[in-house]
């Protein structure tokens, strides 16, 4: 339309173009020039992409005198800290083993792929690790949901996978290639419930739950806690939910306040717990709060300060544990990364080390052999406790209870399975 009559409707008229770049194309008479221009853009793009890819690929040529293992984790995205911590723990273990001459004389090399915390990405990352990079074993993921997505691929391809910290029971049920080095939710839930019922300072009969409904971990742990707590004679007086990352919890907390619980169970990640604690105290909620391993991070204390005084959480290890293997690990980690390792770093470290131990004793580096060796793990002295695998490829190991005091977690008790 060469003319522009419309006065009330600025969109329907073709603008009086200040036409620097010609945009007008005639149907079906596109010149070769335009075709070339188009090909140029697509071309540049493809060339850039492939050259980037080949750049990245150069170092990937597998050689026989090294062992390649893969790690997939959330290096970016909302849960980036989880992936990064775990990756650091793994790196540390690899450095250590390589410094000591490697596994049976072979150096270990790590390939880490980011999955953005997205199950689909986890699937492709692991497929790539397992089938293209042909890694010997896979470490990851932190989050149960993502481990569940990737585990069938490892299982199918006969590559052992060790999840450092996925606590949902379903993960290892995928098959005999899938292991983990952390305890599982039912155990953790019952530990927390028992502690809430029996600890002298709490002795709660009425509990409220505030759960992250977007995190499978949180939902799973909530269920187990609820089961154990009611079985122990307690009642759940209020169940509230939030979404990871929420900033404002006042509606839930006000509601919890009205239900007058004696303890609040918050099976969430530390990123949210700090905020929850701050707001709860503001609202005058003074009852103790209780959580799981999702709380474990130096950041929690920093964020919540004394708002969490008198609150407890269950964890895989305590950095106050005087045993040399723990202190040694902390020293190493601090030396390398200038921060106190959180539970995920410790679990990453343990997962890698368990893998190396199994590789050392396995008759060959085939997936089957390593897996068989992993299954035999007993009495492995990890940073996160002494680990023995049970028939379901879940470690039998104790949990520790920590109490927050002025921003630092303090060791309270160790609760072993079956106690």
């Amino acid at each position, binding site marked *: 339309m060469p003319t522009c009559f419309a006065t009330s409707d600025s969109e329907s008229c073709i603008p009086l173009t200040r036409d620097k770049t010609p945009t007008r194309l005639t149907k079906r008479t596109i010149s070769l020039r335009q075709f070339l221009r188009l090909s140029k853009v697509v071309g540049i793009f493809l060339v850039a992409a492939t050259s980037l890819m080949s750049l*990245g690929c150069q170092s990937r040529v597998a050689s026989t005198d090294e062992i390649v293992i893969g790690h997939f984790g959330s290096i*970016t995205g909302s849960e980036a800290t989880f992936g990064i911590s775990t990756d650091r723990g793994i790196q540390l273990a690899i450095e250590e083993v390589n410094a000591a001459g490697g596994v049976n004389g072979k150096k270990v090399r790590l390939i880490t792929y980011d999955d953005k915390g997205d199950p689909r990405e986890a699937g*492709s990352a692991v497929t790539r690790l397992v089938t293209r990079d042909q890694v010997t074993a896979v470490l990851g993921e932190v989050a149960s949901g993502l481990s569940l997505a990737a585990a*069938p691929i490892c299982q199918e391809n006969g590559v052992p996978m060790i999840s450092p910290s996925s606590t949902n029971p379903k993960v290892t049920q995928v098959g005999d290639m899938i292991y983990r080095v952390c305890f599982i939710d039912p155990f953790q839930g019952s530990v927390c419930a028992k502690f809430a019922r029996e600890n002298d300072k709490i002795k709660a009969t009425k509990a409220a739950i505030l759960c992250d409904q977007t995190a499978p971990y949180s939902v799973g742990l909530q269920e187990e806690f609820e089961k154990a707590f009611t079985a122990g004679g307690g009642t759940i007086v209020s169940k509230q939910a939030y979404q990871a990352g929420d900033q404002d919890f006042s509606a839930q907390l006000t509601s919890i306040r009205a239900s007058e619980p004696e303890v609040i169970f918050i099976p969430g990640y530390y990123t949210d717990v700090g905020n929850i604690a701050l707001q709860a105290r503001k609202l005058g909620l003074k009852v103790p709060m209780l959580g799981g391993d999702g709380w474990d991070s130096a950041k929690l204390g920093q964020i919540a300060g004394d708002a969490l005084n008198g609150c407890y959480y269950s964890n895989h290890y305590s950095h106050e544990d005087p045993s040399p293997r723990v202190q040694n690990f902390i020293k190493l980690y601090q030396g390398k990364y200038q921060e106190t390792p959180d539970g995920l770093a410790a679990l990453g470290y343990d997962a890698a080390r368990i893998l190396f131990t199994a590789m050392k004793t396995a008759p060959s580096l085939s997936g089957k052999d390593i897996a068989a060796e992993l299954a035999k793990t007993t009495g492995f002295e990890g940073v996160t406790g002494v680990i023995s695998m049970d028939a379901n490829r879940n470690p039998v190991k104790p949990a520790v209870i920590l109490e927050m005091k002025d921003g630092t977690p303090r060791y309270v008790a160790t609760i072993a399975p079956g106690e």
Partner: protein
Amino acid sequence: MSASDVLIEPTSHGVNILKSAAPILVGIALAVGIQFLLPSTVGPYYSRLVIDAGIAMILAVSLNIVNGMTGQFSIGHAGFMTIGAYTAGSITFYSSLLIWGTAAKHGSFLGSGEWMFVIACLCGGITASIAGFVVGLPSLRLRGDYLAIVTLGFGEILRVLLQQTGKVVDNAEIVRNAPLTTFATVPVGGAIGFDGIPKYTTLFWVYAFLAITVIFAYRLKRSSFGRAMLSVREDEIAAQAMGINTSRQKLLAFITAAFFAGVGGGLLAHESGVIISPKDAGFQRSFDYVIMTVLGGRGSITGVMLAAILLSGLPEVLRDFERYRIIIYAALLIFMMLSRPQGLFGIHEIWDFFPRSWKTLPWKKSPREEAQ
């Protein structure tokens, strides 16, 4: 002169196999070829990427019916996909449990399990298209960005609702004997996602469905329906004045697009290494497909397909960049958008760019002649 006496009624029916069915048959043949040749040549990893690209194309091409052809602006496409995924997934999962007692894959290529899967995908498509109808209704009243935000809201609502669903019941005995009320919690996994769905999706099925989707979209675009949709995009008032029932066209666009999205979701749910989870319904996933349609060009089917391949492959290509991966991806995205503001192919199809002589080769009819 009244309307009825000038109605052009078709006098003959039936299909000229050579002309009409050939493309579909060729597409399916290609799919068979891909299925048997690709994995052995490029290996499982690249085959998986090809599957992902195929599903992305199904979704982008279908979204293009709404966004590109009809000019409505939907950013809830992942919602339809997710509905399809959950529906198809529950059908195969629970029927497998009931019939075979286990949710594992049953039968081999074209075996009974796969047919159940195909039917499940189609059911997923149908459920999604019902949702498409419901979501399409507001489009009759809303325009542009207002519609966009409503479709986005639909996806978000769906995401939260899916989070509230119950645990997957993976025991055949329980499923068989459970009272129907157990199913009131909608046992599709809640926040953790729906795991355990048998992994039937293969290159063949993805590309067979893709062929059907593309041929459908192409034939739609070149038919009276397609022209009517395009006219809604171009000028709604003029379209009405030309006798186009714009409401009907919009709904039709939503319904068909949602159908294919649902089928795509079904394929996705059965892809190995994929767990469908409530997150899939959220806006971020929908954005991915919107980006593909815009980058491809408004209404250009081949352009959108190319964009879907580029954009689904790019993050994988960049995987070695670890933390810089998404940064590079975003930068490339901006670069592509700035360098081709009208989309890769604009409103054209890829063959419009071929030199004329190619199109007159004896075995290649130009699209113009084809329409005759």
